[in-house]
Protein backbone atom coordinates (compact mmCIF):
# COMPACT_ATOMS: atom_id res chain seq x y z
CA UNK A 1 0.00 0.00 0.00
CA UNK A 2 1.25 3.50 -0.84
CA UNK A 3 1.97 5.69 2.16
CA UNK A 4 1.40 9.41 2.40
CA UNK A 5 4.46 11.61 2.87
CA UNK A 6 3.48 14.43 5.23
CA UNK A 7 5.38 17.61 6.07
CA UNK A 8 4.07 19.54 9.03
CA UNK A 9 5.01 21.51 12.13
CA UNK A 10 4.73 19.94 15.58
CA UNK A 11 5.41 22.04 18.68
CA UNK A 12 7.18 24.54 16.45
CA UNK A 13 9.52 22.06 14.84
CA UNK A 14 9.40 20.95 11.20
CA UNK A 15 8.44 17.27 11.08
CA UNK A 16 8.11 14.79 8.24
CA UNK A 17 6.52 11.38 8.45
CA UNK A 18 5.01 8.62 6.36
CA UNK A 19 1.53 7.35 7.20
CA UNK A 20 -1.26 5.17 5.89
CA UNK A 21 -4.33 7.09 4.76
CA UNK A 22 -6.42 5.61 7.58
CA UNK A 23 -3.94 6.43 10.34
CA UNK A 24 -5.13 9.18 12.67
CA UNK A 25 -3.01 12.04 13.93
CA UNK A 26 -3.06 10.29 17.32
CA UNK A 27 -1.74 7.03 15.81
CA UNK A 28 1.13 8.91 14.21
CA UNK A 29 1.95 11.10 17.23
CA UNK A 30 2.18 8.01 19.42
CA UNK A 31 3.29 5.08 17.26
CA UNK A 32 5.46 6.87 14.68
CA UNK A 33 6.74 9.99 16.49
CA UNK A 34 6.61 8.55 20.04
CA UNK A 35 4.92 11.68 21.37
CA UNK A 36 2.98 9.56 23.87
CA UNK A 37 1.79 12.44 26.04
CA UNK A 38 -1.44 12.40 24.01
CA UNK A 39 -3.43 9.40 25.26
CA UNK A 40 -6.00 7.19 23.58
CA UNK A 41 -8.93 6.80 25.95
CA UNK A 42 -11.72 6.12 23.48
CA UNK A 43 -10.66 6.81 19.85
CA UNK A 44 -14.09 8.35 19.28
CA UNK A 45 -13.75 11.92 20.50
CA UNK A 46 -15.63 11.27 23.74
CA UNK A 47 -12.86 11.54 26.36
CA UNK A 48 -10.47 14.31 25.27
CA UNK A 49 -7.34 12.49 26.48
CA UNK A 50 -5.78 13.07 23.03
CA UNK A 51 -6.50 16.82 22.95
CA UNK A 52 -4.04 18.78 20.79
CA UNK A 53 -4.32 22.02 18.88
CA UNK A 54 -4.39 22.20 15.09
CA UNK A 55 -3.56 25.71 13.84
CA UNK A 56 -4.48 26.91 17.31
CA UNK A 57 -7.86 25.13 17.40
CA UNK A 58 -8.51 22.56 20.12
CA UNK A 59 -9.21 19.16 18.53
CA UNK A 60 -9.11 15.46 19.38
CA UNK A 61 -6.10 13.92 17.64
CA UNK A 62 -8.10 10.69 17.31
CA UNK A 63 -10.56 12.49 15.03
CA UNK A 64 -7.99 13.96 12.63
CA UNK A 65 -6.46 11.96 9.81
CA UNK A 66 -2.68 12.19 9.98
CA UNK A 67 -2.63 13.17 6.32
CA UNK A 68 -4.78 16.22 7.09
CA UNK A 69 -1.99 17.99 9.00
CA UNK A 70 0.11 18.50 5.84
CA UNK A 71 1.24 22.12 5.97
CA UNK A 72 -0.53 22.80 9.28
CA UNK A 73 0.68 23.42 12.85
CA UNK A 74 0.13 20.92 15.63
CA UNK A 75 0.87 21.49 19.31
CA UNK A 76 0.79 18.74 21.92
CA UNK A 77 1.36 18.52 25.67
CA UNK A 78 5.05 17.97 24.93
CA UNK A 79 5.16 21.54 23.62
CA UNK A 80 3.62 23.17 26.66
CA UNK A 81 6.60 23.71 28.97
CA UNK A 82 9.34 26.00 27.70
CA UNK A 83 12.76 24.61 28.55
CA UNK A 84 12.63 23.92 32.27
CA UNK A 85 9.81 26.43 32.72
CA UNK A 86 6.45 24.77 33.31
CA UNK A 87 3.45 26.61 31.87
CA UNK A 88 1.50 28.31 34.71
CA UNK A 89 -1.32 25.80 34.16
CA UNK A 90 1.07 22.89 34.68
CA UNK A 91 2.35 24.44 37.91
CA UNK A 92 -1.18 25.18 39.19
CA UNK A 93 -2.30 21.63 38.42
CA UNK A 94 0.52 20.48 40.71
CA UNK A 95 -0.17 23.11 43.38
CA UNK A 96 -3.89 22.27 43.48
CA UNK A 97 -3.41 18.48 43.25
CA UNK A 98 -5.60 18.65 40.15
CA UNK A 99 -4.55 15.15 39.11
CA UNK A 100 -4.66 11.71 40.62
CA UNK A 101 -3.83 8.97 38.12
CA UNK A 102 -2.78 11.64 35.63
CA UNK A 103 -3.80 9.94 32.39
CA UNK A 104 -6.36 12.60 31.50
CA UNK A 105 -4.05 15.42 32.64
CA UNK A 106 -2.27 16.16 29.33
CA UNK A 107 -5.64 16.52 27.58
CA UNK A 108 -7.00 18.78 30.31
CA UNK A 109 -3.90 20.98 30.21
CA UNK A 110 -3.98 21.37 26.41
CA UNK A 111 -7.72 22.11 26.54
CA UNK A 112 -7.40 24.54 29.44
CA UNK A 113 -4.58 26.40 27.71
CA UNK A 114 -6.75 26.76 24.59
CA UNK A 115 -9.44 28.30 26.81
CA UNK A 116 -7.13 30.78 28.56
CA UNK A 117 -5.60 31.75 25.20
CA UNK A 118 -9.09 32.95 24.19
CA UNK A 119 -10.60 34.01 27.49
CA UNK A 120 -8.33 35.33 30.22
CA UNK A 121 -11.17 35.62 32.74
CA UNK A 122 -13.53 32.64 32.41
CA UNK A 123 -16.30 31.97 34.92
CA UNK A 124 -16.53 28.58 36.65
CA UNK A 125 -19.41 27.69 34.32
CA UNK A 126 -17.39 28.64 31.24
CA UNK A 127 -14.49 26.50 32.44
CA UNK A 128 -16.76 23.53 33.14
CA UNK A 129 -18.45 23.64 29.73
CA UNK A 130 -15.19 24.26 27.86
CA UNK A 131 -13.71 21.17 29.57
CA UNK A 132 -16.84 19.01 29.22
CA UNK A 133 -15.13 17.01 26.47
CA UNK A 134 -12.32 15.96 28.80
CA UNK A 135 -13.29 13.06 31.03
CA UNK A 136 -11.66 12.59 34.43
CA UNK A 137 -12.77 9.65 36.55
CA UNK A 138 -10.52 10.31 39.56
CA UNK A 139 -10.86 13.88 40.75
CA UNK A 140 -14.53 14.77 40.40
CA UNK A 141 -13.21 17.83 38.47
CA UNK A 142 -13.23 20.12 41.53
CA UNK A 143 -9.49 20.67 41.83
CA UNK A 144 -9.06 20.83 38.04
CA UNK A 145 -11.57 23.67 37.75
CA UNK A 146 -9.98 25.48 40.71
CA UNK A 147 -6.52 25.11 39.14
CA UNK A 148 -7.71 26.62 35.85
CA UNK A 149 -9.50 29.52 37.55
CA UNK A 150 -6.48 30.18 39.76
CA UNK A 151 -4.13 30.12 36.76
CA UNK A 152 -6.33 32.59 34.90
CA UNK A 153 -6.33 34.92 37.90
CA UNK A 154 -2.56 34.68 38.24
CA UNK A 155 -1.93 35.24 34.53
CA UNK A 156 -4.18 38.31 34.58
CA UNK A 157 -1.81 39.59 37.28
Amino acid at each position, binding site marked *: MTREHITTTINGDPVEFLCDAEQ*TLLDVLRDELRLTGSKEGC*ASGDCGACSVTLDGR*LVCACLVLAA*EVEGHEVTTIEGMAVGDQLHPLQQKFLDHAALQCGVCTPGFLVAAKALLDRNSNPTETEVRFWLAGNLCRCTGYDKIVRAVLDTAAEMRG
Partner: protein
Amino acid sequence: MRYEVPETKGEAVSLLAMAEGGGRVLAGGTDLLVQLRSGMVKPDVVVDIKKIVETREITAENGGFRVGAAVTGAELDEHKALKKLWPGVVEAVELIGSTQIQGRASMGGNLCNASPAADTVPALIAAGAQCHIAGPDGERTLPVEEFCTGPGVTNLQTGEFLVSFTLPSRPPHSGDAYLRFIPRTEMDIAVVGVGVSLSLDSNGICVAARVGLGAVAATALLVAEAADALIGTSVDEGAIENMISAIRSACRPIDDKRGTIVYRTQVSGVLAGRACRIALQRAEQS
Protein backbone atom coordinates in the same frame (compact mmCIF):
# COMPACT_ATOMS: atom_id res chain seq x y z
CA MET B 1 -7.90 3.49 1.29
CA ARG B 2 -6.69 6.62 -0.50
CA TYR B 3 -6.73 10.19 0.81
CA GLU B 4 -7.35 13.00 -1.71
CA VAL B 5 -7.43 16.76 -1.25
CA PRO B 6 -9.02 18.40 -4.30
CA GLU B 7 -8.87 22.19 -4.57
CA THR B 8 -11.91 22.64 -6.83
CA LYS B 9 -15.49 21.38 -6.80
CA GLY B 10 -14.85 19.81 -10.22
CA GLU B 11 -11.95 17.70 -8.98
CA ALA B 12 -13.93 16.60 -5.96
CA VAL B 13 -16.91 15.60 -8.10
CA SER B 14 -14.77 13.57 -10.50
CA LEU B 15 -12.93 11.84 -7.64
CA LEU B 16 -16.26 10.87 -6.08
CA ALA B 17 -17.78 9.90 -9.44
CA MET B 18 -14.78 7.69 -10.24
CA ALA B 19 -15.08 5.99 -6.86
CA GLU B 20 -18.59 4.85 -7.88
CA GLY B 21 -19.96 5.01 -4.37
CA GLY B 22 -16.69 3.86 -2.78
CA GLY B 23 -15.86 7.44 -1.89
CA ARG B 24 -16.55 9.33 1.32
CA VAL B 25 -16.41 13.07 1.80
CA LEU B 26 -14.29 14.34 4.70
CA ALA B 27 -15.03 17.72 6.27
CA GLY B 28 -14.58 17.81 10.06
CA GLY B 29 -14.39 14.04 10.23
CA THR B 30 -15.97 13.81 13.67
CA ASP B 31 -18.43 11.19 12.41
CA LEU B 32 -16.41 9.71 9.53
CA LEU B 33 -13.31 8.87 11.58
CA VAL B 34 -15.37 7.08 14.20
CA GLN B 35 -17.05 5.05 11.45
CA LEU B 36 -13.68 4.28 9.86
CA ARG B 37 -12.20 3.11 13.18
CA SER B 38 -15.16 0.88 13.96
CA GLY B 39 -15.09 -0.62 10.45
CA MET B 40 -18.62 0.63 9.84
CA VAL B 41 -17.45 2.13 6.55
CA LYS B 42 -14.56 0.95 4.35
CA PRO B 43 -14.19 3.55 1.56
CA ASP B 44 -11.65 3.24 -1.27
CA VAL B 45 -11.08 6.96 -1.22
CA VAL B 46 -11.65 9.73 1.29
CA VAL B 47 -12.12 13.12 -0.34
CA ASP B 48 -11.15 16.01 1.95
CA ILE B 49 -13.13 19.02 0.72
CA LYS B 50 -11.61 21.58 3.06
CA LYS B 51 -9.25 22.99 0.43
CA ILE B 52 -12.23 23.94 -1.75
CA VAL B 53 -12.75 27.61 -0.92
CA GLU B 54 -16.57 27.60 -1.14
CA THR B 55 -16.82 24.96 1.58
CA ARG B 56 -14.86 27.06 4.06
CA GLU B 57 -16.35 30.54 3.61
CA ILE B 58 -19.12 32.50 5.28
CA THR B 59 -20.30 35.24 2.87
CA ALA B 60 -23.16 37.73 3.13
CA GLU B 61 -25.73 37.12 0.37
CA ASN B 62 -28.86 39.22 -0.23
CA GLY B 63 -29.49 39.94 3.41
CA GLY B 64 -28.73 36.38 4.45
CA PHE B 65 -25.60 34.26 4.45
CA ARG B 66 -23.94 31.59 2.35
CA VAL B 67 -22.20 29.19 4.76
CA GLY B 68 -19.67 26.64 3.50
CA ALA B 69 -20.51 23.05 4.33
CA ALA B 70 -17.13 22.54 6.08
CA VAL B 71 -17.14 25.69 8.21
CA THR B 72 -16.58 24.55 11.78
CA GLY B 73 -18.83 25.19 14.75
CA ALA B 74 -16.09 27.24 16.39
CA GLU B 75 -15.87 29.49 13.31
CA LEU B 76 -19.66 29.95 13.18
CA ASP B 77 -19.65 30.88 16.85
CA GLU B 78 -17.08 33.60 16.14
CA HIS B 79 -19.17 35.10 13.28
CA LYS B 80 -21.05 37.91 15.03
CA ALA B 81 -23.36 38.93 12.18
CA LEU B 82 -24.48 35.37 11.42
CA LYS B 83 -25.04 34.73 15.10
CA LYS B 84 -27.16 37.88 15.30
CA LEU B 85 -29.33 36.94 12.32
CA TRP B 86 -29.78 33.22 13.13
CA PRO B 87 -28.91 32.71 16.81
CA GLY B 88 -30.93 29.49 17.00
CA VAL B 89 -29.01 27.92 14.12
CA VAL B 90 -25.63 28.82 15.62
CA GLU B 91 -26.75 27.56 19.03
CA ALA B 92 -27.71 24.25 17.43
CA VAL B 93 -24.25 23.90 15.86
CA GLU B 94 -22.60 24.77 19.17
CA LEU B 95 -24.46 21.92 20.84
CA ILE B 96 -22.65 19.32 18.73
CA GLY B 97 -20.16 17.60 21.03
CA SER B 98 -17.34 19.14 22.99
CA THR B 99 -15.07 22.12 22.43
CA GLN B 100 -12.74 19.69 20.67
CA ILE B 101 -15.55 18.57 18.36
CA GLN B 102 -16.50 22.20 17.74
CA GLY B 103 -13.00 22.77 16.38
CA ARG B 104 -13.76 20.34 13.55
CA ALA B 105 -17.46 19.56 13.17
CA SER B 106 -19.48 21.35 10.49
CA MET B 107 -23.15 21.88 9.60
CA GLY B 108 -22.48 20.08 6.34
CA GLY B 109 -21.11 17.01 8.03
CA ASN B 110 -23.88 17.03 10.61
CA LEU B 111 -26.47 17.04 7.82
CA CYS B 112 -24.70 14.52 5.54
CA ASN B 113 -24.27 12.05 8.40
CA ALA B 114 -28.07 11.89 8.19
CA SER B 115 -28.63 11.03 11.82
CA PRO B 116 -32.27 11.62 12.80
CA ALA B 117 -30.90 13.18 16.00
CA ALA B 118 -28.52 15.67 14.35
CA ASP B 119 -28.73 18.94 16.28
CA THR B 120 -28.35 21.40 13.43
CA VAL B 121 -31.01 19.91 11.18
CA PRO B 122 -34.20 20.95 13.01
CA ALA B 123 -32.76 24.45 13.39
CA LEU B 124 -31.82 24.63 9.71
CA ILE B 125 -35.27 23.35 8.74
CA ALA B 126 -36.91 25.98 10.92
CA ALA B 127 -34.67 28.59 9.31
CA GLY B 128 -35.73 27.51 5.83
CA ALA B 129 -32.12 26.88 4.86
CA GLN B 130 -31.24 25.64 1.36
CA CYS B 131 -28.50 23.14 0.47
CA HIS B 132 -26.21 23.81 -2.52
CA ILE B 133 -25.04 20.55 -4.05
CA ALA B 134 -22.30 20.07 -6.68
CA GLY B 135 -22.36 17.02 -8.92
CA PRO B 136 -21.50 15.55 -12.32
CA ASP B 137 -24.55 17.31 -13.85
CA GLY B 138 -23.67 20.68 -12.33
CA GLU B 139 -25.13 22.29 -9.24
CA ARG B 140 -28.57 21.99 -7.69
CA THR B 141 -30.34 23.41 -4.67
CA LEU B 142 -32.51 21.55 -2.18
CA PRO B 143 -34.39 22.55 0.99
CA VAL B 144 -32.74 21.05 4.09
CA GLU B 145 -35.90 19.10 5.02
CA GLU B 146 -35.62 17.17 1.74
CA PHE B 147 -31.91 16.34 2.07
CA CYS B 148 -32.15 13.29 4.33
CA THR B 149 -34.33 10.41 3.18
CA GLY B 150 -33.76 8.03 6.07
CA PRO B 151 -31.34 7.21 8.87
CA GLY B 152 -27.87 7.46 7.29
CA VAL B 153 -29.37 7.99 3.84
CA THR B 154 -29.35 11.25 1.87
CA ASN B 155 -30.63 12.53 -1.41
CA LEU B 156 -27.04 12.89 -2.74
CA GLN B 157 -26.37 10.95 -5.94
CA THR B 158 -23.04 9.31 -6.82
CA GLY B 159 -20.47 12.01 -7.50
CA GLU B 160 -22.42 14.69 -5.64
CA PHE B 161 -21.38 16.52 -2.50
CA LEU B 162 -22.76 19.30 -0.31
CA VAL B 163 -20.92 22.57 -0.91
CA SER B 164 -22.77 25.17 1.15
CA PHE B 165 -25.98 26.36 2.74
CA THR B 166 -28.01 29.49 2.26
CA LEU B 167 -29.47 30.99 5.40
CA PRO B 168 -32.08 33.48 4.12
CA SER B 169 -32.53 37.09 5.16
CA ARG B 170 -35.40 37.78 7.50
CA PRO B 171 -37.86 40.58 8.19
CA PRO B 172 -37.71 42.64 11.40
CA HIS B 173 -39.35 41.16 14.51
CA SER B 174 -38.06 37.68 13.69
CA GLY B 175 -36.41 35.23 16.02
CA ASP B 176 -35.35 31.60 16.16
CA ALA B 177 -34.25 29.14 18.81
CA TYR B 178 -33.17 25.52 19.11
CA LEU B 179 -33.35 23.32 22.19
CA ARG B 180 -32.50 19.67 22.61
CA PHE B 181 -32.78 17.29 25.52
CA ILE B 182 -29.84 15.18 26.73
CA PRO B 183 -29.38 13.29 30.01
CA ARG B 184 -26.11 15.06 30.82
CA THR B 185 -25.23 18.71 30.24
CA GLU B 186 -22.87 17.91 27.32
CA MET B 187 -21.47 15.10 25.17
CA ASP B 188 -24.75 13.25 24.52
CA ILE B 189 -26.77 12.68 21.37
CA ALA B 190 -30.12 14.51 21.37
CA VAL B 191 -33.03 12.50 22.74
CA VAL B 192 -35.30 15.17 21.24
CA GLY B 193 -34.49 18.40 19.39
CA VAL B 194 -36.80 21.27 18.41
CA GLY B 195 -36.07 24.34 16.29
CA VAL B 196 -38.56 27.20 16.09
CA SER B 197 -38.37 30.27 13.85
CA LEU B 198 -41.04 32.92 13.70
CA SER B 199 -41.75 36.47 12.47
CA LEU B 200 -44.18 38.97 13.94
CA ASP B 201 -45.85 41.96 12.38
CA SER B 202 -45.75 45.37 14.01
CA ASN B 203 -48.78 44.39 16.13
CA GLY B 204 -47.03 41.32 17.45
CA ILE B 205 -49.09 38.89 15.39
CA CYS B 206 -47.18 35.90 14.08
CA VAL B 207 -47.08 36.18 10.28
CA ALA B 208 -44.62 33.37 9.56
CA ALA B 209 -43.32 30.37 11.46
CA ARG B 210 -41.43 27.15 10.83
CA VAL B 211 -40.88 24.37 13.33
CA GLY B 212 -38.30 21.61 12.90
CA LEU B 213 -38.37 18.47 15.01
CA GLY B 214 -35.49 16.01 15.51
CA ALA B 215 -34.86 12.54 16.96
CA VAL B 216 -38.49 11.50 16.92
CA ALA B 217 -38.69 10.01 13.41
CA ALA B 218 -36.50 8.47 10.70
CA THR B 219 -35.49 11.97 9.62
CA ALA B 220 -35.85 15.44 11.10
CA LEU B 221 -39.33 16.77 10.36
CA LEU B 222 -40.78 20.08 9.25
CA VAL B 223 -44.00 20.25 11.27
CA ALA B 224 -46.38 22.50 9.34
CA GLU B 225 -49.26 21.92 11.81
CA ALA B 226 -47.08 23.28 14.61
CA ALA B 227 -46.30 26.39 12.59
CA ASP B 228 -49.97 26.83 11.65
CA ALA B 229 -50.86 26.77 15.34
CA LEU B 230 -48.74 29.90 15.78
CA ILE B 231 -49.41 31.86 12.58
CA GLY B 232 -52.12 34.46 13.01
CA THR B 233 -51.84 34.44 16.78
CA SER B 234 -49.95 36.65 19.19
CA VAL B 235 -48.11 33.48 20.23
CA ASP B 236 -49.98 33.49 23.53
CA GLU B 237 -49.86 30.49 25.85
CA GLY B 238 -53.00 29.09 24.20
CA ALA B 239 -51.33 29.14 20.79
CA ILE B 240 -48.22 27.60 22.26
CA GLU B 241 -50.30 24.82 23.81
CA ASN B 242 -51.82 24.11 20.39
CA MET B 243 -48.34 24.10 18.86
CA ILE B 244 -47.20 21.66 21.54
CA SER B 245 -50.00 19.20 20.82
CA ALA B 246 -49.28 19.48 17.09
CA ILE B 247 -45.65 18.62 17.85
CA ARG B 248 -46.59 15.62 19.99
CA SER B 249 -48.92 14.22 17.36
CA ALA B 250 -46.17 14.62 14.75
CA CYS B 251 -43.82 12.41 16.77
CA ARG B 252 -43.14 8.94 15.40
CA PRO B 253 -40.23 7.95 17.66
CA ILE B 254 -38.75 4.58 18.56
CA ASP B 255 -37.72 3.03 21.87
CA ASP B 256 -33.95 2.86 22.07
CA LYS B 257 -31.03 3.22 24.45
CA ARG B 258 -31.43 6.97 24.43
CA GLY B 259 -35.13 7.29 25.12
CA THR B 260 -38.57 5.72 25.03
CA ILE B 261 -41.47 6.52 22.68
CA VAL B 262 -43.48 7.92 25.56
CA TYR B 263 -40.59 9.98 26.89
CA ARG B 264 -39.59 11.42 23.52
CA THR B 265 -43.17 12.35 22.69
CA GLN B 266 -43.72 14.02 26.05
CA VAL B 267 -40.45 15.93 26.10
CA SER B 268 -40.69 17.06 22.46
CA GLY B 269 -43.71 19.12 23.48
CA VAL B 270 -41.95 20.52 26.53
CA LEU B 271 -38.94 21.64 24.48
CA ALA B 272 -41.11 22.99 21.66
CA GLY B 273 -42.87 25.25 24.14
CA ARG B 274 -39.59 26.42 25.67
CA ALA B 275 -37.95 27.02 22.28
CA CYS B 276 -41.02 28.89 21.05
CA ARG B 277 -40.93 31.27 24.02
CA ILE B 278 -37.25 32.01 23.41
CA ALA B 279 -37.86 32.59 19.68
CA LEU B 280 -40.78 34.89 20.54
CA GLN B 281 -38.70 36.91 22.96
CA ARG B 282 -35.96 37.28 20.34
CA ALA B 283 -38.52 38.33 17.70
CA GLU B 284 -39.93 40.94 20.02
CA GLN B 285 -36.46 42.31 20.73
CA SER B 286 -35.24 42.38 17.12
